[in-house]
């Protein structure tokens, strides 16, 4: 049986499958549920300085292939309230990875310090949230911003810091390289892909916010492309996200260069039971292909390191 345990920097995971941020992430009981179902770790909803209700409904649109478009608008209970949810999950043994979002380096650093105090094992920075609403740009699309934010956070916390990279960029690997320079222990890629849906009968965007983020099967090729390019550019571990629903998807990401994986939209199919199936399926597939561990398979599709 192939060894599924992986290390992402100093973060030890019992298996590479993490609950992605924003999925089952508002309540400690839900995080604990994903852990109990077999996730290797659980990432919290992205937490900000103040409670946010998020955008009004409709916040989600579904596609026939299982892909989703969402504009939740980063609802979260705020940094004052949220640590208690982390504690609920930790009390049930979960490896909890925090996620925060902010408008600038100072806010990220402040949030990081506060969330770190709740005992999270690592911290993911959501660098793909709307910076100035309506401008269509993101705080994480400029390498200089990314580097500055990561550096500011790394200065404040002792746990591994993971920079989550946007795919809405001509060169996501440059963003990952900036995160590495800033001291990130790892990068995760990708967050959702900018998208929109229109209801033609109603002549209006389906989502109340208009613009949304695409996730699920449709973006798997996009995520794989980002992970591939990032793996070629940085030395720190890469965490693959985007459209992972089967062990085969996971293996594509591992071969492209991912050391760990996040799973979001696939949870809609049959709940967190997906984590057990993914771990079992990946282990079986690694056995078939003759790999003794996930780590041994990371990046195997790259010619230079195959």
């Amino acid at each position, binding site marked *: 049986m192939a060894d599924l345990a992986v290390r992402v920097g100093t973060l030890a995971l019992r298996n590479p499958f993490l609950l992605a941020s924003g999925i*089952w992430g508002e309540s400690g009981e839900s995080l604990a549920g994903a852990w109990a179902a077999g996730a290797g770790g659980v990432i919290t909803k992205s937490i900000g300085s103040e409670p946010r209700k998020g955008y009004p409904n*409709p916040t989600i649109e579904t596609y026939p292939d299982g892909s989703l478009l969402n504009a939740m608008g980063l609802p979260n209970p705020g940094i004052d309230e949220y640590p208690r949810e982390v504690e609920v999950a930790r009390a049930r043994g979960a490896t909890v990875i925090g996620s925060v979002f902010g408008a600038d380096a100072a806010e990220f650093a402040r949030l990081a310090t506060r969330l770190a105090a709740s005992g999270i094992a690592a911290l993911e920075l959501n660098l793909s949230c709307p910076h100035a609403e309506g401008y269509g740009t993101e705080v994480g699309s400029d390498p200089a911003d990314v580097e500055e934010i990561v550096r500011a956070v790394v200065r404040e916390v002792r746990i591994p810091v993971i920079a989550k990279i946007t795919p809405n960029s001509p060169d996501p690997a440059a963003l990952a390289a900036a995160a590495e320079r800033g001291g990130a222990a790892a990068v995760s890629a990708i967050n959702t892909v900018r998208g929109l849906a229109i209801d033609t009968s109603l002549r*209006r965007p389906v989502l109340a916010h208009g613009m949304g983020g695409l996730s699920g099967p449709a973006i798997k090729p996009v995520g794989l492309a980002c992970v591939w390019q990032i793996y070629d550019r940085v030395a720190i571990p890469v965490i693959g996200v985007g459209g992972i629903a089967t062990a085969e998807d996971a293996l594509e990401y591992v071969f492209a260069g991912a050391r760990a994986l996040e799973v979001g939209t696939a949870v809609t199919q049959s709940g967190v039971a997906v984590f057990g199936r993914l771990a079992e399926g990946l282990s079986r597939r690694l056995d078939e292909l003759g790999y003794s561990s996930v780590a041994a398979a990371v990046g195997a599709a790259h010619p230079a390191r195959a």
Partner: protein
Amino acid sequence: MRTVVRVTERVVETPSTVTLRFPYPGPAAPGQFVMIWFPGDDELPMSLSYTEGASKGVTIKAMGTTSRNVQELAVGATVGLRGPYGNRFDLSARRVLVVGGGSGAAVLAPAAERAAAQGTRVTVALGATQSAELLFRHRFEEMGARVEVATDDGSEGTKGFVTSVAERLLTAERFDAVWTCGPEIMMQKVAVAAGALGVPVFCSVERHMKCALGLCDACALGPYHVCVDGPVFPAERLLPLAEFGRSHRDPSGRRVPFGAR
């Protein structure tokens, strides 16, 4: 993947409640809900108050902004629909006590209707603020159910809470199951009372909903997600939860006590 339909019928059920009917083919079961989008306004979870055939319906009580706005919705208005979502009432019991408060009757009526048609003996304890607000009272009667009512102001039936009517019925008669929907504190009381007598209780609960796909966590209730694990729960799953009857979550995910709603 929404269906946009036109409202084909509008029925004022009580001074604060209106039913909208619309074509929405496909199967649906009593207990399930749809996400109904009032364009330009909110998208809300609403139980199907009519589940049979191609013409479905929802019954909306004026509560907050959107539910008040849509009281005025005319025939011909367009709404977006997705679903039905969620689980259903188990209709196998032969003697059922239905306990409804406020808009709770919206989801209980189609369940009772289908059960009654199958030969189930249906008894209804129906509560409202006042006589005119007793939702689906005649619908329950037409299906052959016995209806006992309670009103806050005593304008009809027992004055006070419907829970006391329910408790009286539970001690006086034998039931195989209780189905309840209404304020959570009401459901909790009913659950405790029936539980003490060994009668299984099924509660249809509400939580804030966004995705309705079991993803966003907005509707988390203990270890459950009301949108996919519910909305119908056996009471024994709910009673151990610290939140049941006490707190829910606002749209930001903060835990809010029920009084503070």
